[in-house]
């Protein structure tokens, strides 16, 4: 949810970074969005097109890496993909949700000219 507000925050970060690096144009925005971040990637792409109009990021390609929800069992160390938010370790059956990926909501990099 809140994809519009999130997208505006993304644009703000992108334009700030572009300015800091003396960019004339932003051609690509790379995002990392985790499964647990509750964000619909298609909405972010859609809104970015709208909010970036008349900025140097207008027309930039938005590339989203969706990271799956993964946990490391703090009992046996096994790393597993979490299905249906069940954090039972498939190896030792203990429940110890040490989440190692899936909560990300970040701008990882931008491509500029």
């Amino acid at each position: 949810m809140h994809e519009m507000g999130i997208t505006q925050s993304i644009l703000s970060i992108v334009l700030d970074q572009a300015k800091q690096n003396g960019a004339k144009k932003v051609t690509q925005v790379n995002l990392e969005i985790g499964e647990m971040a509750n964000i619909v990637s298609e909405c972010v792409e859609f809104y970015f097109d709208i909010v970036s109009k008349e900025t140097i990021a207008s027309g930039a390609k938005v590339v989203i890496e969706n990271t799956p929800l993964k946990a490391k069992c703090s009992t046996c160390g096994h790393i597993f993909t979490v299905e249906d938010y069940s954090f039972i370790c498939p190896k030792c059956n203990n429940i110890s949700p040490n989440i190692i990926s899936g909560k990300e909501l970040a701008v990882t990099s931008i491509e500029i000219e």
Partner: protein
Amino acid sequence: MEVKVLKDILEVNDVIAQENAKLFKDKGVTVLNIMSSPGAGKTSLILRTLEAARKDGIGVAVIEGDIASKIDAEKIQEHGVPAIQINTGGACHLDAHMIKSALAHLNLDGIAFLIIENVGNLVCPAEFNLGENKKVMLLSVTEGDDKPHKYPLMFSESDALVVNKTDLIGGTNFDMDGFRKTVLNMNPDIEIFEISCTTGKGIDKWAAWVTNQLSPRK
């Protein structure tokens, strides 16, 4: 040319939440963020909690969050407890900035607990840190026992879960044992309380947990 950014998009909220948390810590105030669907019983739970706090002589203040109206803040104020009402005007959750603004109107001297009643919503409040010590969610039995599957983030992020309206469970298909198992598979550290705000059943265990969260005073 690629420019590495590595910036968290919700950083702005989290920075303000940390500022709020520091203020609370400096003032020795423990903060609970109470979240649930509309009508699950957040205000009723807060009123029951206030009763218990009064018996123990613990100073409490409340920040109420709703899209509109002052109904909840007025209910709290009728009990002689300071309450600030935030009207979001459309935003479906409270965020750290709204809390920071509300704190400008709240005197925290003598206050041990600040209870924040979030906007009724089982989705978004879980995503926004306010600077609280503990996230508490409510679910009433009449909402159904399948909610953990449908709203996993809320159940995963909360420190405590209060299951309310247990006096009505006979009129529902709510499978309490199955529900507890599902929730604990998602969040093994969550504390679960079964209560009825109407009858008062289970409130004592809840109140004891709340009291145990008190920040050590400076």
